[in-house]
């Protein structure tokens, strides 16, 4: 199933490249307005805002692009639990890839002066957990939103408020990393986020079969 998703995505290369381009363009736009950012808080906030919108455009559309025929085909041939697992895993991988691209471009253009030398591993760990968390949440939200007539607009209406807890947690974690606060005092933010993400995975797995009935 994951392979199927990946193949589907490869066939629609324009969307993947489009989203990567979107995030690169956003970073470049930010570069034009800021040049380099010395202030840790701004650096952090800007990076997460760009990642958030990348996530919305990448993962948020994951159920919208299915054509009716494909939907029927999947409905008859695949159990919904397998489908949601495949979607979750695929979206997570996609999001990790996009995060890597965005981070690379971000560091190239805007620089990484606020990041202390030895904090990179913690920063990357935070980015990984954050991306997984975003993609998990937005997968189900996208599945819900795709059922309504208003399409992707609904993803934003439903997703933006509900993503705030994750943003608060990951943002605080990263701000602490940049301030070089000891790992022991900061790890609870990450653990909370992991618990939340696990909860989202569990809920998606349980609830998705109810959505997938037509």
């Amino acid at each position, binding site marked *: 199933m994951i392979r199927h998703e990946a193949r589907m995505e490869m066939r629609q290369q324009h969307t993947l490249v489009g989203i990567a381009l979107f995030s690169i363009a956003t970073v470049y736009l930010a570069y034009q307005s800021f040049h380099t950012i010395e202030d840790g808080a701004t650096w952090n906030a800007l990076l997460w805002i760009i990642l958030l919108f990348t996530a919305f455009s990448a993962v948020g559309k994951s159920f919208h692009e299915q054509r009716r025929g494909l939907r029927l085909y999947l409905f008859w041939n695949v159990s919904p639990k397998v489908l949601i697992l495949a979607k979750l895993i695929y979206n997570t991988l996609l999001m990790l890839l996009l995060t890597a691209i965005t981070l690379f471009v971000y560091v190239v253009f805007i620089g990484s002066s606020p990041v202390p030398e030895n904090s990179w591993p913690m920063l990357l760990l935070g980015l990984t957990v954050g991306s997984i968390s975003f993609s998990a949440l937005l997968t*189900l939200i996208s599945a*819900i*939103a795709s*059922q*309504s*007539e*208003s399409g992707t607009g*609904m993803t934003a*209406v*439903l997703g*933006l*408020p*509900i993503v*705030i*807890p994750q943003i*608060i*947690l990951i943002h*605080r974690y990263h701000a602490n990393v940049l301030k070089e606060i000891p790992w022991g005092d900061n790890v*609870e*933010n990450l653990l*909370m986020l992991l*618990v*939340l993400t696990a*909860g*989202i995975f569990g*809920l998606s797995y349980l*609830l998705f079969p*109810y*959505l997938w*009935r*037509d």
Partner: protein
Amino acid sequence: MRQSWWKVLCVLLLFYTLFASYLIPLHSGLLPNENNQLESNEVVEIIGYNTHFTEASQNQAFLGCGPTRFCAEIVSIDSDTRMNVRFDLPDTLHKKSLNLFVNNEKDGTMFLQGAFFKNSAVVDTSRIQRGCEVDVKTEKSSAFAFPFQPTIFETIRNLMFHVPMWFTMFLIMLISVIHSVRYLANPIREYDLRAETSARVGLLFAILGLVTGSIWARFTWGAWWVSDPQLNGAFVTFLIYVGYLVLRSGIADDMKRARVSAVFNIFAYVILFILLMILPKFTESLHPGKGGNPGFNTYDLNSSLRAVFYPAVLGWILLGVWIYKIQLRRNRLRSKLYYNEK
């Protein structure tokens, strides 16, 4: 009539809340003086709030500074709330800020932290000056009154309105989520109707909670809105349930609408639960009981406050359930009419 006893109870409780929370006075306390610079033997004014300086026969005022106490010579008592005193202070003090204590048999012992500063004093902790010997009475006034809290003062009455709104909202949202779960287990239109109606009523209480909280914040913290985990949580709750209603209006087919919105409702409630219950405990908050702030439970939810607060909570919850029942009947009739027309 027999089935509506709880409605009568609700009205009685809310009347009680309304009268009690506005009529019960505040405990006496001390207000900070604008002129808080103190010199030895200079006459300063002590400003009380709800105090009985003239009525009381034995007024006693003294300053606390570290382990030392300095008694006041009472110059004149102008009114029940104003008193002029003079302190005889040495040049060497434990620290520059002095705590004020006032004691009389009517008001009990009142305390104001950092009431005065003696900036000309030399700080020397090794040479502690002997002050006066006071027999410190710690009895609390027995009057039935709300506690006198610095910065909160009279706004403590809002406790009876602001806090129960959130309790009610949580309960009503719980009703909503339970019906969403029941709908997914057993798709009957009635469950969907209940889930939607209670989400709407819960949203009403969320708005009331935000408004009462905002007014309270304006008069205690100085701004209509502050950055605080509790406030973030409340605002997110509000947005999510507005999103829920938008989602409902975005789906035309009613079986599908019921199913999809039930899924969203459950999903949102679990995330909200995590957000509102666990997140604020990890971070600093201006709310009582969080981030080192004392909770109302620890020492200052005194018996008089409890006597009003608990009935208030019950009263508001009953009102919420009542609104929900009426709305539900209205929506049931509406859906009946709608399906008959078809």
